């Protein structure tokens, strides 16, 4: 049975590596928006099945203003439920640039982010953090849909 949130084959392709290769070093950025929570759940579900090595970075998303402690609590509960361990970091200041800086300076293979909210019409709206990261990161980026 597929893990909760594994969804379509897209996430599988992005997060899975052949068993003989070492796992990827993933950096998940989370600012508390609904799509970032979804990205967390999907990434953790994949990490539970692979050798991937996950670090969670809690960001200050000006669009949500969710309390960082509340986000951390949520992250801990998702990790615990999946029996995955991952260091949790708090990034102060501008979220996009801090995340890219961390990914590049500490040798991460991939940044994982929420893929945007949808409007009442169903239009995908790319978040400000995702836009900055996509345009600036030299590390590959996965947007979780």
């Amino acid at each position, binding site marked *: 049975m597929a893990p909760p949130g594994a969804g379509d084959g897209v996430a599988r392709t992005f997060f899975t590596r052949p068993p003989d290769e070492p796992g990827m070093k993933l950096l998940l950025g989370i600012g508390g928006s609904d799509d970032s929570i979804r990205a967390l759940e999907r990434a953790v579900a994949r990490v539970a099945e692979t050798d991937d090595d996950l670090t969670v970075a809690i960001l200050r998303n000006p669009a949500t203003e969710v309390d960082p402690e509340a986000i951390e609590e949520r992250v801990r509960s998702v990790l615990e439920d999946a029996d995955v361990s991952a260091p949790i970091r708090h990034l102060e200041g501008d979220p996009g640039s801090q995340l890219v800086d961390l990914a590049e300076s500490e040798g991460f293979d991939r940044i994982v982010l929420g893929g945007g909210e*949808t*409007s*009442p*019409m*169903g*239009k*995908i*709206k*790319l978040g*400000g953090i995702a*836009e900055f990261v996509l345009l600036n990161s030299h590390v590959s980026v996965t947007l979780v849909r």
Partner: protein
Amino acid sequence: MSGESDYPDESAGPFPEPPTTFADCEGRSITVRRYDETADRDALEAMYAAFDPADRAQGIPPTGEKRIADWLDAITGPETVNVVAVHDDEVVGHATLVPDEPVATAELAIFVLQAYQGAGIGTTLVETLLGAGRAAGIERVWLSVERWNDPAISLYEKVGFVTSDTESFEHEMAIRLDG
């Protein structure tokens, strides 16, 4: 779109209510009328099945029968306002208002089949939709459009939309309807 301040102070209108029939720039007789779920659903699904995926914006219209059907269920549901442009019994254009917060606010989207684009149908479709929306009690309408889509932005400006947000990845525009 959140605040009252995103909408222009001046209201626009009045706009015509459906139905309206006119000749487009190619001389085709086009009727814009209210969407009728029972009579038009199949024709609307056929229009989206034929829609060029290169003309999609921000993930809509979706592709595939099931996704199109689910999306149409959502945007033609309770409290939405929908009009269609019809030529020879074929639906060639569709415009919709989907309710948003706060009350009397809606998000707008419009789609015209590729062979019918650039013929003036979009303008009448949007204006008639706004007329139908006002009649249904909608006072504020917003939309987002890709910021490189100049023809669409010009159309919306001509109808009376003003740009409300240039900061985000998508270009957002808003209009306040005459009370």
